[in-house]
């Protein structure tokens, strides 16, 4: 296949970037999208040009590193998958493909297609956990969890924190990411003790990081590689409201 790539090149967060065009002539349909970038980077190196920086690691859709905005869609045309799971057979010979980084105020560009997503970690640090020290747990089967509950928790916990939800949202909101974590713990018996505090703190941190507001258009869930459902946002809203109504430490 012959492919024309238009790739966002940006030296660092202080320098303006631009789209640069590259021509690739020998692309196999069985190649993965990132393997195409490997090939291109190999060619660039040979020509003495700087390679394109991008995040990637597992290349099987689980680590959440890869993050390309392809032809106007987070992770490209295939729903329910990450950039690394995309194969060239999803495109046609002669296609022009535009590749940009995630765009969001809370995700500044580091270089080329690589962005800074540490805001997600800070949201997790704000309360995305159950406080249990090593060694203090009771026998695992002493906490029965009905199967449907475990399934719902797992549906939410599948989130890979790639940030596609933010990239897909016109307001760059992080609601789906936060909702997935809050939901995961809110439905489990283990998560009850810190339930209200968690919702409050995580939402407060999300706001501090500069993510936008949620207008419930659902683009996040459509583009989510794990197809995390909007139900979790509904649950987060309930949790948050409930927390605000009952909380002793209401701030901001």
């Amino acid at each position, binding site marked *: 296949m012959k492919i024309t790539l238009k790739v966002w090149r940006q030296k*660092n967060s202080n320098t303006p970037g631009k789209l640069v065009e590259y021509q690739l002539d020998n692309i*196999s349909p*069985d*190649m*993965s999208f990132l*393997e195409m970038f*490997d*090939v291109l980077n*190999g060619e660039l*190196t*040979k020509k*003495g040009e*700087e*390679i394109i*920086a991008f995040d990637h*690691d*597992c*290349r*099987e*859709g*689980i*680590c959440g590193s890869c993050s390309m905005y392809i032809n106007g869609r987070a992770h490209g045309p*295939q729903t329910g998958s990450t950039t690394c*799971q995309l194969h060239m057979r999803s495109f046609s010979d002669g296609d022009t493909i535009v590749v940009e980084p995630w765009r969001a105020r809370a995700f500044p560009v*580091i270089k080329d297609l*690589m962005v800074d997503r*540490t805001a997600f*970690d800070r949201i*997790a*640090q*704000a309360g*995305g*956990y*159950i406080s*249990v*020290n*090593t*060694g*203090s*747990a009771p*026998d*695992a*089967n002493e*906490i*029965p*969890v*009905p*199967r449907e509950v*475990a399934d719902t*928790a*797992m549906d939410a*916990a*599948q989130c*890979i*924190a790639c940030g596609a939800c933010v990239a897909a949202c016109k307001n760059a909101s992080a609601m789906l990411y936060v909702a997935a974590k809050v939901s*995961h*713990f809110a439905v*489990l018996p*283990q*998560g009850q003790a810190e339930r209200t505090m968690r919702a409050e703190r995580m939402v407060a941190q999300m706001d501090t990081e500069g993510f936008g507001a949620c207008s419930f258009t659902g683009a996040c869930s459509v583009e989510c590689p794990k197809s995390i459902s909007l139900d979790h946002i509904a649950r987060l809203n309930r949790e948050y409201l409930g927390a605000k109504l009952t909380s002793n430490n209401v701030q901001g």
Partner: protein
Amino acid sequence: MELDSKIPEGPLAEKWARHKFGLKLVNPANKRKYDIIVVGTGLAGASAAASLAELGYNVKAFTFHDSARRAHSIAAQGGINAAKNYQNDGDSVFRLFYDTIKGGDYRAREGNVYRLAEVSVNIIDQCVAQGVPFAREYGGLLANRSFGGAQVSRTFYARGQTGQQLLLGAYHALSRQVANGKVKLITRTEMLDVIVVDGKARGIITRNLLTGAIESHSAHAVLLCTGGYGNVFYLSTNAMNSNVTAAWRAHKKGAYFGNPCYTQIHPTCIPVKGDYQSKLTLMSESLRNDGRVWVPKSQQDAEKIRKGQIKANDIPEDARDYFLERRYPSFGNLVPRDVASRNAKYVCDEGRGVAPTGLAVYLDFADAIRRDGRKTIEAKYGNLFEMYEKIVGDNPYETPMMIYPAVHYTMGGLWVDYNLMTTIPGLYALGEANFSDHGANRLGASALMQGLADGYFVIPYTIGDYLATIGPGDKIAVDHPAFKEGEQRIHDMNNRLLSIKGSKTVDEYHKALGHIMWDYCGMSRNAEGLKKAKKMIQELRAEFWQNVRVLGTNEEMNQSLEHAGRVADFLELGELMVDDALHREESCGGHFREEYQTEEGEAKRDDANFTYVAAWEYTGDNKPEVLHKEELEFENVKLTQRSYK
């Protein structure tokens, strides 16, 4: 140096309890006077960092990833073993111990493995308390599945994303300690050297991957939790950035390397397609619970399939060879990985492989779907089937999957004693980075168990003994000349790589090394091939340092430079693996020497001469390494020819 494994005296079941009692403790108020560096935030690193911080130590945790949650552990699919015996099917700590020792082909320490089995039950308790959403039965109790090498059902799982959920459990615990200020988490930063002064590990040198800044960090102890080195083969199931650099640079500073040649080749991976391929994808072993492995009985049928003239479903039942079920009736498709891989290779070598390359066998779910219904199979393996379909473009509900063995895990790693300390005092290795518990072959679902055992339940006890011995004053500041020299060495190495300006990319060298390793030090090995490989690696390494092309500078984000440093280390490690494979004149577990096999083609150990751990000592650039032997003693199990018939 004499190797002392520090395995405690006494009956097997009491060793760990006695040892814990004998270890020195650090008084709770004094813990804050100690600084600990943890490199890596996978299962081993994140669990260790969180647990040590909970105890009150000051922890600095490093990862080259942008987030602690992206460590390679996230990719583990199938499950984690624990001797809970919730299924009432005869499991026990002793049985898990026994299966692991046997599965490792009697090349692991009894004491370590027993401890691992013992703490396995605490791991599940801990993870459930953290909110890990393990699979459940309708009554709300935990569900289990079976894995290779065991006849009981003891594997806990969270769909096909067990590693993800366990790592998130540890990541959450770590995040809580970051919020508490007890862990300083330093991301996108790569450790490039260990600093040793007066024979003790004192800290590390790192490179900030965003700015290129080379920096020193000092501490009372350093923990390497940096994962395995399967990527020495270029193509493997490991994440792209997994590498040996941390362990290798520690090795060059005096940490012995244990059993480097013990590599696990996983039988169920998606076969290689083209030369551009960058990595291989594992299809979880759990699939072998329900999938049946087969190839056509005749070469003619296989050839027609390869040419695309017929399809798998055109082959009638009686023309299929379910070779694992035929050869190993009692374990069937659930034989250990090394056995399953080797048998797949045999049938492909006989010309009965499928896929255009001839390097694939079928994993067929038709019977299971007929028996349990598509819904059940979908519930168990849905995400794996989807993953397969995305990569291959075939629907495994309708046509059998094609699989082939691929490099997956490295049992070898830094040599550690019972306390997880390397031969450098104050330097520890945890998780896949050490060599400790799996002998010559790891059983499925045991790596997650080991990483978390090391981090949650072993190191929090054992490190106290060392710290209490040295005392809080025994720490060196980063302005010490040893740190400055360390920084300079890294600058020099990077400048050297950048100044070669040769004609081949780093990737080309990596790929070339991978080919040599796979061809001569892969699924089966022989003396002649290994000797040839050694020479080829030496030549390749020399060429790399003459002709590699790394662009840009050190003082910026530079992914080629990162990769170059890692490949430089792989080029040295590869030779040691070959040396180790050559010296071990027996077959055991994942190390299969063609010269040493039974009449039936099974691995043939030489217990009289090789019942030891090979621990290699680095003696200088391009100099032969020195072999040290740690004899293995078996008091509780009898060494037998492993049989899964």
